[in-house]
């Protein structure tokens, strides 16, 4: 096991990545996207559903990675923006459904707006207080949907017709698959660009030493707020997609369990890497599926939370750098 000392020096050097490294870093993800695009029509119903679910959660996890891994802001209320995006999609749809683009803008815009309010207030605090304030704001949003008639109360509401625009109709499962895949690729690409940009370099600096960044002249509050709003909007995108997939929304989408799970996903995958967020989502979702399948683990399946908890403790103990750390250790060139 590698100790704490080499860990810092082996973190990715976000501001260092020149274009050559960017394209190399995008090779594996681009291949994965291509494989999924080709395989999509041949996947069975269950497999296709599972892949779509994982891809949506991966967008959600990537949006949190921008905050936690890239900026060093640990938020425990990220599900609020996911849920608000989902609710906005359903509430904005009429009886005949709605325009996909308009609903997408509405979902991302609502999430971004709430993120602007939450960020503007919570970013005045630090560390554990920041965690508590983000959690409190998420719980507030949760109870608004849970205890009022705004979104059908605790039962939630149905989306009768899924969003569409022209030939792109999300009622079609294959179209939904490709839209989700494109959204994931777009999110990944956007965050990869941000990482190598000056904005991303400043976020990396804030993660290491906000004091130093202020001393050289960065108004760090506004950088953190911008990251918070972008992360909120991307979580809203994931919310739009999950509402379109499930055709129903309920307050559980905003619950703090959901915020906690997505945080676990990116820690499991390895903080500080976009790949980590995606790998962590895949691993977490598959583990959850496996550990709750009677055919595989017998009566233990009823207690999947327990076995999942133990597996995660094991991961954190033996793989402090997450799955990405494991991949780096196994690959010949990535051991730096």
């Amino acid at each position: 096991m590698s100790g704490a000392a080499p860990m810092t020096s082996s973190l990715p050097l976000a501001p260092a990545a020149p274009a050559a490294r960017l394209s190399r870093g995008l090779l594996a993800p681009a291949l994965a996207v291509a494989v999924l695009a080709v395989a999509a029509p041949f996947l069975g119903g269950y497999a296709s559903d599972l892949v779509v679910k994982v891809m949506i959660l991966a967008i959600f996890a990537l949006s949190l990675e921008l905050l936690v891994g890239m900026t060093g802001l640990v938020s425990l209320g990220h599900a609020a923006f996911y849920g608000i995006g989902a609710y906005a999609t359903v509430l904005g749809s009429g009886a005949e459904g709605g325009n996909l683009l308009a609903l997408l803008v509405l979902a991302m815009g609502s999430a971004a707006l709430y993120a602007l309010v939450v960020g503007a207030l919570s970013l005045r605090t630090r560390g554990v207080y920041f965690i508590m304030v983000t959690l409190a704001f998420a719980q507030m949003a949760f109870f608004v949907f849970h205890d009022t008639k705004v979104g059908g109360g605790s039962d939630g509401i149905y989306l009768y017709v899924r969003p569409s625009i022209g030939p792109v109709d999300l009622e079609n499962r294959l179209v939904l698959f490709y839209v989700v895949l494109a959204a994931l690729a777009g999110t990944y690409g956007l965050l990869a660009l941000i990482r190598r940009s000056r904005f991303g370099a400043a976020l990396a600096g804030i993660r290491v030493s906000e004091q130093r960044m202020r001393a050289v002249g960065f108004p760090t509050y506004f950088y953190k707020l911008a990251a918070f709003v972008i992360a909120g909007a991307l979580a809203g995108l994931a919310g739009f997609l999950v509402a379109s997939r499930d055709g129903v929304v309920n307050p559980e989408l905003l619950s703090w369990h959901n915020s906690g799970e997505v945080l676990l996903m990116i820690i499991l995958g390895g903080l500080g890497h976009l790949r980590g967020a995606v790998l962590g989502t895949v691993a977490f979702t598959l583990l959850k599926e496996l550990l709750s399948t009677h055919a595989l683990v017998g009566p233990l399946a009823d207690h999947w939370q327990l076995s999942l908890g133990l597996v995660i403790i094991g991961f954190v103990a033996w793989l402090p750098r997450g799955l990405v750390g494991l991949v780096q250790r196994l690959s010949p060139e990535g051991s730096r």
Partner: protein
Amino acid sequence: MSADALLQVDGLTRRFGGLVAVGNVSLDLRVGEVHAVIGTNGAGKSTLINMLSGEIPASDGRISLQGGDITALPQPRRALAGVGRSYQRTTVFAEFTVLENCRLAAQAATPRPWAFWESAARCAASNQAAREALEAAGLAGEAQRIAGTLSHGAKRQLEVAMCLATRPRVLLLDEPLAGMGAEETERMLALLARLKAGHAILLVEHDMDAVFRIADRITVMVNGTVIATGDPESIRTNPEVRTAYLGDEAAH
């Protein structure tokens, strides 16, 4: 106070509750001069530097840069206006390379945060500023090293280089010689001597030999107030300073 002062401080005061950490301090910094502030632990030197850099607000008094009042400017705006500082505790970005440390500092001047499609590593202006700063600080040969792997002395040099990368006119240096060996001290003093020509330097330092060698003016603080200001010779022979701070050392 002199008319050609770049940074002028009048009656600066900082109270923490009932305690006066810095009381009614006035001094000025001029280009071409190293102005050292000395004093025992708890004399208020760090509080003074924190107020000048904008890290903590002043309770009272006025700070002006080239005649313009900057007392109310927040720290980032003050840094962009030309007031740079280094820290007593090394605060370099350990996981970035030496060049990246300086480039990031230089980017504060031309941040363009919305241009997310532009690569930070290819920003010509900040690369240029970073290389000049490394050259000036004598770290040009270490540009590609990971900052965390540098020797203590080199990290202190980088601390100053990051400050230089922002192209400041005023340098507030908080114990740049802390923990340095003899050779590293010599290198840092030579750097300060070179920087003097283009900058107004405030130096807080505990190494008295170094202070009396490099400083053009010295301000002595005791319990938050200034008890003497003058050239090294007058400070050395000032009886009040000798009893209050220098003790027997200055007699030799």
